[in-house]
């Protein structure tokens, strides 16, 4: 079928999918090679798997709305693209797990295969979304591309909701690579309160540093010096997003079950070091 002027050429579509697949693999390879993630796939109940699909879809909607697509794209376009990325994530995760012999057709039950694919597809589809939007830029004239870039920048810099969504995506993508491992539990169990306090302070300091001194794109650091209240509020928000994302990830991978409140809290803070990097620096990377 010959493309009409109103539709994108096939070559450009293939290039876009290529970028998406590259992004998906880039972000999900650590998870594809992590045992605990395979295990989480068959330990999770069917209901938990439904929740993770819905959660991933919401993250995709958020990312595509605030960073992945043109600011003028309608919600219908965002919904359609998010489904497309989720489907691609499933297919890619299935193919990679098959290649790595983590799933075997015949000897493994459908629910086991499905569990592994769904867990891996979570970060894979977010990676596809980021890869499609970030690895390279769209075709068209120089002016069009420049204008589109400016529109995107404007969209990304506007509103607390957008920053929160992007921060959450960044925290999930960065923190998700470590959350399923036993090491987070080991750190949580063995760290003394002083260590946990140090982790929290370092995380907060990293958030402040990255948000206000390393991010030249942030509205707070552009031309005007942000006041202390803005710094305090945005840093707190960034760290809270990181802790929230850490708690969600730890809960999903069963790290909060059967542990004391202190151990759960310590794990959240330990994972929060990475997640806070994700919610602040990751936000710049995927932005």
């Amino acid at each position, binding site marked *: 079928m010959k493309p009409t002027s109103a539709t*994108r050429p096939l070559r450009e579509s293939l290039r876009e999918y290529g970028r998406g697949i590259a992004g998906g693999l880039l972000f999900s390879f650590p998870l594809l090679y992590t045992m605990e993630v395979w295990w989480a796939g068959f330990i999770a109940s069917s209901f938990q798997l439904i929740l993770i699909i819905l959660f991933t879809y919401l993250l995709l909607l958020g990312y595509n709305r605030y960073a992945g697509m043109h600011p*003028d794209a*309608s919600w219908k376009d965002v919904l359609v693209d998010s*489904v497309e990325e989720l*489907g691609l994530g499933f297919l890619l995760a299935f193919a990679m797990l098959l290649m790595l012999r983590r799933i075997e057709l015949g000897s493994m039950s459908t*629910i086991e295969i499905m569990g592994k694919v769904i867990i891996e597809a979570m970060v894979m589809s977010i990676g596809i979304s980021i890869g499609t939007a970030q690895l390279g830029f769209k075709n068209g004239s120089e002016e069009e591309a420049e204008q589109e870039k400016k529109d995107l920048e404007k969209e990304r810099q506007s509103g607390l909701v957008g920053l929160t969504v992007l921060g959450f995506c960044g925290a999930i993508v960065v923190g998700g690579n470590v959350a399923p491992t036993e090491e987070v539990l080991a750190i949580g169990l063995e760290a003394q309160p002083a260590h946990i306090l140090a982790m929290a302070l370092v995380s907060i300091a990293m958030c402040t540093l990255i948000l206000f001194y390393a991010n030249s794109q942030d509205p707070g650091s552009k031309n005007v010096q942000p006041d202390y209240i803005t710094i305090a509020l945005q840093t707190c928000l960034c760290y809270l997003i990181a802790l929230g994302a850490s708690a969600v990830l730890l809960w999903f991978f069963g790290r909060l079950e059967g542990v004391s409140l202190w151990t759960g809290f310590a794990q959240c803070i330990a994972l929060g070091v990475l997640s806070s990097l994700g919610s602040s620096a990751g936000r710049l990377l995927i932005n």
Partner: protein
Amino acid sequence: MARKKESGYQNKKNWFEWTVFGVGLGLVMSILGYLVFKTATYTAGPPALFVEYFPEPGKYEPNRYHVILHNKGNETAESVTVELSLQKYGQEPETAELAFDYCPKESTREGWISFSTRPTPTDTVRTRVVSYDRP
């Protein structure tokens, strides 16, 4: 297809992208449908483990047995230990253990064990699941 001409944005999806979307939508809906069915028909209970075994002599392991662990329950079993014992004239001269990290729900895991003595046709091999955890 959504278009916002006033703002200059056009959804330019071609037939290939719509096909990918269709496949993606079908896949997501099928997976969700299957999971909803599994959730609706789920009954809580411990893992239901049983062991199948049969002799499978190898070139260097003449007394080898192939062991297949089945879990027919709705829960995954962790750290499963399976014991095979050789019974001769009411005595139990030899036992062998096999450990599996996990046996997921509705799945099987395989392993092999070797006895040091050759079981004769009159000997009996007995098997049991010794222990397992809930993950």
